[in-house]
């Protein structure tokens, strides 16, 4: 039995925006799954849905099985028990997730006390232990959030997530606002904690390279669906879906001459969940779209062992033609509008 299994999850917000449109995922204990995507793709919604933290008007469908139990069908009391003790979340924007008028030691002890796991003294001791685990001295428990730096606050958030010994930790953009060095420290800490305590980790980010470095498997989301899922290194280096490839190319590898003076991106913007394009939702921005893409929606196809991607090109003309390594003549590759001698082609904004 998997630690986490998501089946056909759909989430529609009160205003009609379809944030998640059918997502299937699986995560085993001790495994690390990365969810990559940009704004509006539904990844944060997915994270909130796991613990039923969505706002009141949201309609949720499908199943979320945490250790075999469907979170969406649980009674309210059970949900509250599962929150934090079964699965916990490290929220995005840790700077603002801490209450500025309470000491951090009290905030870490809060879930421990709420779940009735210890007395006040025991909770304080536990908070000290957790701070040590995340690399902060236990004496810092008496500090207020504003006395800590960004990296230190993120560590506090991680300590809070560990407070009730959860089986699953969901980290939503844990390093996005942090410097490169602090980001490396935090990622290293997360990896070590996950290995020590054998928890499952679901990490959400827009940086494919960071996810590929840390996680075992990667799922790329676009417009509420998973468009590619497979082993992390393969999805990052040789993505089959054009969007996953573009996301991977957006952050160049330093030292790679092909990305020197050639920033790569996609035209247009991530789609608005309340106004999605027809057919394959990626087709307006896809560099290798076919005519059929405007009308036919795509579903995940097998692209290798334990590897799936939702593109019509998979397996069509042979597996090697699946990804847009260099598209055909006449079709501009993303971002290739620069360099001397190349005329800038106006794109519809």
């Amino acid at each position, binding site marked *: 039995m998997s630690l986490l299994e998501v089946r056909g999850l759909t989430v529609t917000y009160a205003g009609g925006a379809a944030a998640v449109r059918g997502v299937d995922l699986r995560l085993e204990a001790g495994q690390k799954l990365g969810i990559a995507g940009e704004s509006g793709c539904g990844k944060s919604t997915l994270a909130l849905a796991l613990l039923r933290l969505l706002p009141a008007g949201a309609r949720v469908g499908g199943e979320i099985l945490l250790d075999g139990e469907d979170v969406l069908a649980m009674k309210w009391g059970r949900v509250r028990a599962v929150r934090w003790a079964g699965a916990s979340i490290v929220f995005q924007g840790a700077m603002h997730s801490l209450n500025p008028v309470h000491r951090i030691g009290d905030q870490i002890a809060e879930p421990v006390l709420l779940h009735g796991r210890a007395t006040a003294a025991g909770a304080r001791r536990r908070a000290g232990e957790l701070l040590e685990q995340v690399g902060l001295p236990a004496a810092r428990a008496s500090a207020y959030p504003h006395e800590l730096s960004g990296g230190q606050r993120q560590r506090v958030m991680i300590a809070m997530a560990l407070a009730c010994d959860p089986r699953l930790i969901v980290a939503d953009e844990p390093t996005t606002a942090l410097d*490169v060095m602090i980001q490396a420290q935090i990622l290293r800490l997360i990896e070590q904690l996950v290995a020590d305590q054998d928890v499952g980790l679901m990490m959400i980010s827009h940086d494919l390279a960071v996810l590929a470095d840390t996680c075992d498997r990667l799922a790329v989301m676009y417009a509420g669906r998973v468009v590619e899922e497979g082993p992390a290194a393969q999805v990052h280096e040789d993505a089959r879906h054009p969007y996953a490839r573009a996301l991977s190319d*957006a952050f*160049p590898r*330093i030292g790679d001459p092909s990305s020197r003076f050639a920033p790569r*991106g*996609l035209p247009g913007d991530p789609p608005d969940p309340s106004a999605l394009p027809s057919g394959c939702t990626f087709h307006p921005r896809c560099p290798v779209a076919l005519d059929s893409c405007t009308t036919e929606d795509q579903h995940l196809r097998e692209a290798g062992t334990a590897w799936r991607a939702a593109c019509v090109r998979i397996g069509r003309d042979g597996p090697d033609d699946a990804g847009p390594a260099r598209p055909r003549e006449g079709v501009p590759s993303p971002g290739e509008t620069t360099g*001397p001698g190349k005329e800038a082609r106006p794109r519809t904004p």
Partner: protein
Amino acid sequence: MTPSTPSTTALLRAHRVHVAFPGRRGAPDARAVDGVDLDIRRGEIVALVGESGCGKTTLARTLLGLVAPTEGGVTFDGRPLEYSGRSLKAYRKRVQLVLQDPSGSLNPRHTVYDAVAEGLRIHGHRGDEQAAVAGALSRAGLRPPERFFLRHPHELSGGQRQRVVIAGALVLEPELLVADEPVASLDASVRGEILALLLRLRDDLGLSALVVTHDLGLAWNIADRVAVMYLGRIVETGPVEQVLTAPRHPYTQALLSVLPEAPGDPVVLTGEPPDPSRVPSGCRFHARCQILAGGEAERAGVAEACRTRDPGVLTGDDTAQVACHWAAAR
């Protein structure tokens, strides 16, 4: 494909710039910029990289004239910057700013047209304002421009807002653009287009740029030269190909080693950059330096120098330089 070769005379030059912010109630001054020489030539894109608190944002604002240096000076096109109202205003027509957060950079009550025309109105533009605004929007990639005139910032996406900000800077036909984290708040897939725009502006209009960022990949994508800052000083500078593939300063080496796809073992520095009001003695990086901590500096015989002697201020030109005793001894 080689970029257009920049000319050799500096367009914008910072000379021995120090910017110190007074500490409150007897605390020592925060030395945000602690001695920097930096030249930017015509048609050149220079990336100023560093982590938060290193002073790169303060340096950028000093170069723009928004902050006056406590020591040293800024020269533009051969003439030193004067801080009087009139000469600063004239300076603004030639050097423009693009900020990080496009949603905050635009007044939510103004339309796109007003936001772009603002610069023209401030400087009393004679001639067809509407044509100038439309031209700037087109050059920034928003076509057809008329479609955007009456929109408000909240009706646009992040990438479009950033283009509006760039158009607002372009409408004054500046010679140099200072961009502070121009793509940090944008989605990854939109990043490429904005960076491509900056490159195109350099190629088509000869626009120079100083891009302030913490993202080394951005420097790799579009910059000719890179300057790495740490605690108010530039610790390494030079052509991007050289500095980013063969870094000599331990800090640069550490920064590059922790990037996800970097070869070799990551050097994860412990702790955080110290306070600008408490700059360490000697080489300001020595307290966190992996070379010193690992004993290599001792073996090279420079450990004492690292602790006691300041490696000095690098010159602003385009040669590859590094402010490190150990690197100099090799």
